[in-house]
């Protein structure tokens, strides 16, 4: 055996502060441009400042992200997550949270106040959709950009893991293609706006009688296809895909809400509440919401068939109440606005009816589980800490048990941050699905009840 060794002198890490400064400078100009577009549109044409600002923000953001992520080795990507102000509920986190929340409040209740920014989108909207920009187009553009730019962030952060690279590319693709370009194209072709990547019960109104008749009347054959597509995805594809792959096929590969959470929300994943009391709130809120949607949908159909005689305005009131409280306040304001405070999956965990539906399927009719590798767990807690759904993954792993939980979106980050490679997402036979490793004796003292 070779007993002498010439080891190369350690390479010095390249100084990346220049690149970061350049990136931050561009981000600063970008924000300034957006600010001027929002409030100075009477003085300066907002198209220049607004679109210019977005461009500067995007490029600056990408430069900064590139420098920041590549200067850290793969194992150090979570350095400072719990000590830096922006990601540990510090001052920066509150500023970001308030700005995001404020934006959602303006968007939902005071859209006129966003006129400057909306006007800035005019050329883009005309080009993509052949119609004037509105606040929802502005929102969609911001949303998609957030998924794409922060998608690059996630790609670099998890660059040594092919599962996360492919998964991240998938959510970027579905947001850009299915939730942004395709609906715009439909409008361009004077067809009804439709999101092929959202289904009932998340997009609850897609199976409401009003939407169905609207699509049939305005979309003709395409409209019928859209209804067919939505129904098939909700009632056939969802159970089948969830049976084979777990709810992850949707929540962390396709869904736009999940897509934003996995990209823009990724730096906040550790903020999710892991306490047992949080789990109790979760089951107490999310299943009633699913029930509420099912009842509302049924009521609306009963009402539609009886031509309003049976229930009158009751069902309509049901659905508009839901739209306000759940659609606007929960999914937008709390779901995204509170990212820096409560973590990136608050909506998915406590509010999303699709997640509830998928969760029931995953728990009871699926081949998916996260396997624990024998007796290798060291109870360090990285898995639980970085679980965006607040699952105490460690509670299972340290007992050698597989993790089979309705809420698990299968993002796979627990398996990635585990320093001993103890966790693996896999699909296997349902027989013995709950069986655990014989290499740990279990004490079976309950953690959830």
């Amino acid at each position, binding site marked *: 055996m070779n007993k002498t*060794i010439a080891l190369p002198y350690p390479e010095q890490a390249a100084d990346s502060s220049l690149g970061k400064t350049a990136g931050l400078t561009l981000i600063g100009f970008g924000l300034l441009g957006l600010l001027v577009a929002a409030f100075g549109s009477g003085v300066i044409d907002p198209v220049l400042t607004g679109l210019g600002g977005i461009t500067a923000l995007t490029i600056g953001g990408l430069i900064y992200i590139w420098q920041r992520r590549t200067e850290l080795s793969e194992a150090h990507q979570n350095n400072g997550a719990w000590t830096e102000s922006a990601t540990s509920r510090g001052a920066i986190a509150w500023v970001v949270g308030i700005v995001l929340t404020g934006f959602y409040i303006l968007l939902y209740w005071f859209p006129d106040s966003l006129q400057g920014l909306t006007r800035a989108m005019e050329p883009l909207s005309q080009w993509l959709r052949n119609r004037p920009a509105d606040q929802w187009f502005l929102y969609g553009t911001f949303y998609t950009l957030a998924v794409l730019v922060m998608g690059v962030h996630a790609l670099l952060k998890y660059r040594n893991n092919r599962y996360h690279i492919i998964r991240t590319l998938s959510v970027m693709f579905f947001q850009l293609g299915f939730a942004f370009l395709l609906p715009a194209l439909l409008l361009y072709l004077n067809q009804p706006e439709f999101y092929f990547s959202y289904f009932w019960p998340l997009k609850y109104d897609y199976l409401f009688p009003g939407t169905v008749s609207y699509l049939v009347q305005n979309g003709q054959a395409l409209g019928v296809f859209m209804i067919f597509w939505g129904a098939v995805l909700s009632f056939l594809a969802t159970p089948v895909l969830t049976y084979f792959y777990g709810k992850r096929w949707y929540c962390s590969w396709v869904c736009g809400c999940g897509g934003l959470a996995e990209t823009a929300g990724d730096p906040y994943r550790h903020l999710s509440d892991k306490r047992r009391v949080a789990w109790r709130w979760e089951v107490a809120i999310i299943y009633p919401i699913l029930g509420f949607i099912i009842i509302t949908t049924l009521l609306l159909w009963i009402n539609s068939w009886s031509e309003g005689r049976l229930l009158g305005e009751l069902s309509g009131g049901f659905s508009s109440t839901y739209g306000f409280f759940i659609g606007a306040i929960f999914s937008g304001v709390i779901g995204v606005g509170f990212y820096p405070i409560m973590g990136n999956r608050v909506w998915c965990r406590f509010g999303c009816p699709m997640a509830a539906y998928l969760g029931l399927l995953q728990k009871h009719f699926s081949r998916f589980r996260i396997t624990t590798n024998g007796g290798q767990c060291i109870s360090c807690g990285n898995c639980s800490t970085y679980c965006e759904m607040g699952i105490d993954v460690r509670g299972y792993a340290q007992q050698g048990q597989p993790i089979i939980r309705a809420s698990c979106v299968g993002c796979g980050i627990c398996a990635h941050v585990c320093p001993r490679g103890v966790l693996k997402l896999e699909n296997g036979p349902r027989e013995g699905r709950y069986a655990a490793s014989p290499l740990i*004796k279990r004490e079976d003292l309950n953690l959830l009840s």
Partner: protein
Amino acid sequence: MQQDRHLVIIGNGIAGITLAQHVRRHSSMRITIISAESAVHFSRTALMYVYMGHMRLQDITPYEDWYWREHNLELVHDYVEQIDFGQKLLHLRQGQPLKYDTLVLATGSVPAFFNWPGQQLKGVQGLNSLQDLELMQQQTQGINRAVVVGGGLIGIEMAEMLQSRGIAVTMLVREKLNWQNILPWEEALLVSRHLQAHGIELLLEDELEEILQDEQGNARAVRTIKGKEIACQFVGIATGVLPNVAFLQNSVLELDRGILVNEYFETSIADVYAIGDCAQFRNPTPPAPAVEQLWYTGRQHGETLASTLLGTRTAYDRGPWFNSAKFMDIEYQTYGYVPNQLPPELDSLYWQHKSGRKAIRLVYERNTQKLTGLNLLGVRYRHDLCHHWLRQGYTLKEALAELPAANFDPEFFRKFEHEIMAQYQQRFPDQPLPEKQQQNNWWNLRSKFKLATGSKKH
């Protein structure tokens, strides 16, 4: 064991806590756990992640406060000054004396210092306890150069921690390469190169002579036995750990390096047991060491002693060795017997990826081709299956037939088992491996060999 006895456990590490949990599962006896270090159980192995900001202290405590309350496990945060074995009485620093019927010592380890001149200086410390972590947080504020003494697991962890704060690190390694007293040459070389690629300077085949001080009594440099002087403001001591038994030094309990126990963890005094890092087996079976200082062995000690305390006197059987670690971003797993230098009767198949970040080694007996152990770097294998191979005395060829099922890497990862198989084929051309067998997938093997227990929902 009678339900009215009082079980007192000194130490709330993995050994003591595992014991308490397993006893509680089958018994309602009074259980008290005493620790001077921490009010509640935490994961010692996770201290480094708190330092690097990946987690907070509350994140490395595996159980919420209600857990102890609901399961009636009494926690005492105090220091045991003295044990009166005759009266079965514990004298605490703050609280009232505590009477026990059964006593379990699970006091863990302390860092080993070897009387170097200057080892008491400010800025010199080991990393083992919560207090060590707090001290390290303070002592590394605003510094830019550190030396870590020892190239093993804790040493590499300390180097990684320091480096995460932008502190330049030099490691002083007694062996020719990092952890070469444990790892075979190729693995040790892979790890050492990886550390260097991450900017950690290695000073190989050199040892600490003394630590030099400045006017304020802080460490300012170390001098090595080869006479090299390295300026630094912090010296991490990672030259192993010793059983934490100093407080028992003047007692009647029989000690050597640790508390002497038999295979039932019984000490020289009736109703007194010792488990985990602080225990030393009187008659270990080679190659098992007399003192086992791992998270995993601590847990296994706790599981075994629980059976005894619950009425079934059970001898400790560690089973095939296993361990795991992480060197920066390269995971390491080992199963079975893989010595750092293969004796003539052993040989191995070794594959290494050209990136220098993945490796697989299968060690076997030359004569019988019996598999003795595996080393894995940057590749994950299934513990349950490797354990099965070693327990059942698989030959190399038998194990290779099931090798693809052992891979535990995430979905979409590239697999390299065929590389090892090709090596086998090259070395033993007259013993062809069976064609790829569909029934050898993991799920089939798992049910065939019963590598899973219970199917109860949790």
